[in-house]
């Protein structure tokens, strides 16, 4: 259990072995099976065949219907990421400048909803944005005509921003914690305006936190399921709801698997690019 770090023994594998086997069997094996499945021939009358084909991938990247859904997914995820950054960065900065107990209380308010089920939050937004919802009632109260919000991309983006905001605030907040407040004060005393100090001193130091927040938000938004499912309705599909439909309504598992694999590969590429970027930056900083 506890031994000197220098000891070379089989202990680490005795400790982690069972877990490693379980994880390999529950992650690597099913993923491999899914990759294989995505190349299997599917026939609407007889189901999955024994032959192999590339047609599902070709269908996904050439068919207008699927391309439209992919574009919507990218558009919605990009929009969500942008809005999250625009709201999350100043909010984290404001939080960092608060004093306790307010700072702890509001940090809890901002990141606490992370623990509330996403179905609950999606349902809350469907009530707020519905045709008789609070937003439309407020619009009518000030004399404006009601707008159709529910089952639009706008509704999906609004609710996604709500769900993703903590993922943006947390890394920026962490970066701000490492920032010495005296550095900003030094910039002011040297004659920099507040804006210049923010732009030249604070922003560069939190940019990495912001970048990691953006990647997390983008990845999670692009594969989000409950929000587009409940706020996009039947017609406004995104990648995740499309996979769900292929699996449980169309029963075309190979096609669904192909889309899921594309989502996975896109996610992993983003993560790799991020790691590469962080490493180059660290190397440049070290000289």
């Amino acid at each position: 259990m506890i031994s000197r770090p220098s000891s070379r023994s089989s202990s680490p594998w005795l400790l982690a072995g069972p877990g490693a086997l379980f994880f390999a069997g529950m992650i690597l094996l099913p993923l491999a099976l899914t990759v294989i499945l995505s190349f299997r021939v599917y026939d609407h009358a007889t189901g999955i065949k024994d032959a192999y084909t590339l047609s599902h991938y070709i269908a996904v990247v050439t068919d207008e219907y699927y391309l439209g859904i992919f574009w919507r997914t990218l558009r919605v995820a990009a929009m969500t990421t942008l809005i999250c950054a625009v709201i999350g960065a100043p909010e984290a900065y404001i939080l960092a400048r608060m004093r306790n107990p307010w700072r702890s209380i509001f940090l809890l308010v901002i990141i606490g909803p992370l623990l509330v089920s996403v179905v609950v939050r999606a349902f809350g937004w469907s009530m707020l944005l519905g045709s008789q919802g609070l937003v439309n009632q407020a619009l009518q109260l000030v004399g404006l005509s009601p707008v159709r919000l529910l089952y639009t991309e706008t509704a999906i983006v609004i609710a996604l921003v709500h769900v993703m905001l903590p993922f943006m605030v947390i890394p920026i907040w962490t970066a701000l914690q490492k920032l010495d407040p005296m550095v900003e004060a030094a910039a002011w005393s040297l004659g920099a305006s507040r804006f210049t100090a923010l732009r030249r001193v604070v922003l560069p130091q939190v940019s990495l936190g912001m970048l990691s927040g953006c990647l997390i938000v983008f990845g999670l938004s692009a594969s989000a399921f409950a929000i587009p499912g409940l706020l996009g309705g039947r017609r406004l599909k995104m990648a995740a709801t499309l996979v769900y439909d292929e699996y449980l309504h169309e029963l075309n598992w190979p096609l669904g698997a192909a889309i899921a694999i594309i989502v996975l590969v896109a996610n992993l590429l983003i993560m790799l690019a991020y790691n590469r970027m962080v490493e180059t930056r660290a190397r440049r900083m070290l000289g």
Partner: protein
Amino acid sequence: MQKNGPLALLFHGLVVAFVLAPLVIICLVAFTPENTLSLPTGGVSLRWFKAVFAHPDFVASFWNSIWLATLSATLAVAFAVPAGLAISRFTFAGRDALNALFLSPLIIPHLVLGVAFLRLFALVGATGSFSWLVATHIVIVTPYVLRLVLAALSGLDRSAEQAALTLGASSWTTFRRITAPMILPGITGGWLLAFINSFDELTMSIFVTAPATVTLPVRMYMYATESIDPMMAAVSALMIALTAAAMLVLDRAFGLDKILVGQR
């Protein structure tokens, strides 16, 4: 540290309102006496809460989710503690790969995991099995426990362990009497976080649950896509209350910011 200006505070107020709005509206509508989703302007009623407890499907799904979350969080601790010890205490070939494997469910979208598990279930004939559902949830929640266990282990003063070993304690006794009590906050925090994440999980579960094993979020999702009445608000309000209680415990015991933001 500078103070926030009025403009900053106004912005902050709007963000807080935005964050709380959907949760507040749920809690209000849950008390409506009407048959439609509406604010309880004409009085407060508990009829929709009663309707939830009289609805056999919701009650069954609730207990199913509670059991699922309890079992998967506990088994996740059983995997994460030894794995955390191996990763933080030893240098060995494949350590980084092992760490990456255990943390990979955080990077793989739940949608993809759901699809992959569904394929596995279909091949081994596990559809509808509760034990297999627990196995899938263990995969999803173990990384949360592992991260906190690793953080607890790295912040540990090892001289107490060394003293015990020098005084002749076996490595198991040292773990049981010295290390385990010292990382207990990390383990408990990890367990609670794992419980909440399992209890809330929808995207993966919706692929692998069968009618007999439907979890509460899946049940709610299905219900919300078909009919919308205030009962959905009542269930949601109960879930918010449950989460808020767990959050308060987590915050009082460990500081929620530490657990969610990570150790600094």
